[in-house]
């Protein structure tokens, strides 16, 4: 199943990456963090603060690259990522804890 999670993608920023979650594949852009794009794709994901300090949206980053435009306050364990503030920078595979 492939879902294009983003609409109105700016033509000057054509970076689209695949996010693998189990058997699901979601296309995301670099325009905004992963969390809202997953939500639009119908993926339920825990969240609270949505600004990188509460850790609630921590998920497994199995492989691939994400970046944080602003370093979040929450502790990020190795092999994990914060969905609310991470920008996906390559194809990635994620999982839930």
């Amino acid at each position, binding site marked *: 199943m492939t879902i294009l999670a983003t609409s109105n993608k700016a033509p000057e920023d054509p970076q689209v990456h695949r996010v693998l979650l189990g058997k699901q594949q979601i296309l995301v852009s670099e325009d905004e963090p992963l969390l809202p794009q997953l939500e639009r794709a119908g993926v339920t994901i825990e969240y609270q603060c949505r*600004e990188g300090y509460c850790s*609630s949206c921590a998920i497994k980053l199995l492989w691939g690259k994400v970046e944080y435009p602003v370093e979040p306050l929450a*502790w990020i364990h190795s092999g994990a990522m914060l969905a609310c503030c991470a920008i996906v920078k390559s194809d990635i595979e994620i999982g839930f804890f």
Partner: protein
Amino acid sequence: MSYSTFNRKKFDSLQEPMFFGENVNVARYDQQKHPIFEKLIEKQLSFFWRPEEVDLSNDRKDFLKLEVHEQHIFLSNLKYQTLLDSVQGRSPNVALLPIVSLPELETWIETWSFSETIHSRSYTHIIRNIVNDPTKVFDDIIVNDEIAKRAISVSKYYDDLIELVNLYNTLGLGVHHVPERGDVTVSMHSLKKALYLTVASVNVLEAIRFYVSFACSFAFAERTLMEGNAKIIKLIARDEALHLNGTQHMMNLMALGRDDPEMAKIAEECKDDVINIFVEAAQQEKDWAKYLFKDGSMIGLNAQILGQYVEYITNVRMQAVGLEAQFETKNNPIPWINAWLVSDNVQVAPQEAEITSYLVGQIDNDLDGADFDDFGDL
């Protein structure tokens, strides 16, 4: 040994551990061993709020219209939260300030504890506004068995640490005879172990224990009842999410050996104890949910759903400190709560949106010629 309010020794605080090193002397933040604590201070200050800003006049009318069993749910939660913040408004200061060794962490502890005193004052604000005699509500906190059980759990690790630190500061290391207590062994190992368990217990307090109460407050507000209260609870929840970040950082820094190498060994040694602290607290919260709903549930919530939520949030919090989830519950049974727990749509007065990124008197110093282009040729 004995605590000094201004340590005269010259030492490099960047080489000190978070706790049990030198007493802090100069409150300086130009250099920091763990800059996260300074960032937490800044964030907490940007969250500043006052309970009196929230109008509760409609809550009084709503409260009178609630069913008796719903009034029991509402007041019991307020009593429990009052207990939790009574503890949190003083204990980080009393227990941790005598042993802290980093200026940025010392100030975070004080900032953190101060914000808890705002929560305590907000409970008085709420109770004063909705009942005629607040004394009845507050007096019951000490005599109510269900609350007393929880008071023991939330204070015992603090009290153990405080006792050991008092002995350490007056008598030093060794085995000391304490009247009515017997012999107490004070070693760096027992002190650090008591500290680690205290931090874990505080993390559980702020990351799990508040949430049954939060869920009930927001469930009332989903029915457009007690909305002033829900506004206050939103502000409290925002603060608590920041506080749990602080204890998560302390636990992770200790456990991963990024602070005091001995603490990493102690964290490993205490792993089962910490798992038990989480699991026991979850069980107590589930029992609390049963007590709340003993005379009847409320729309959208019952003891079973709240129990599942407690298990779910416990899993989330355990994973954040590097522990395995202990419960089967994989999904949030009340996903609507998250919309209430989001930070940035907290609005106090109708005319004033409390956006966390908004700072009074904020100035942008990074200007160049291009910023004036819009002015045209004047």
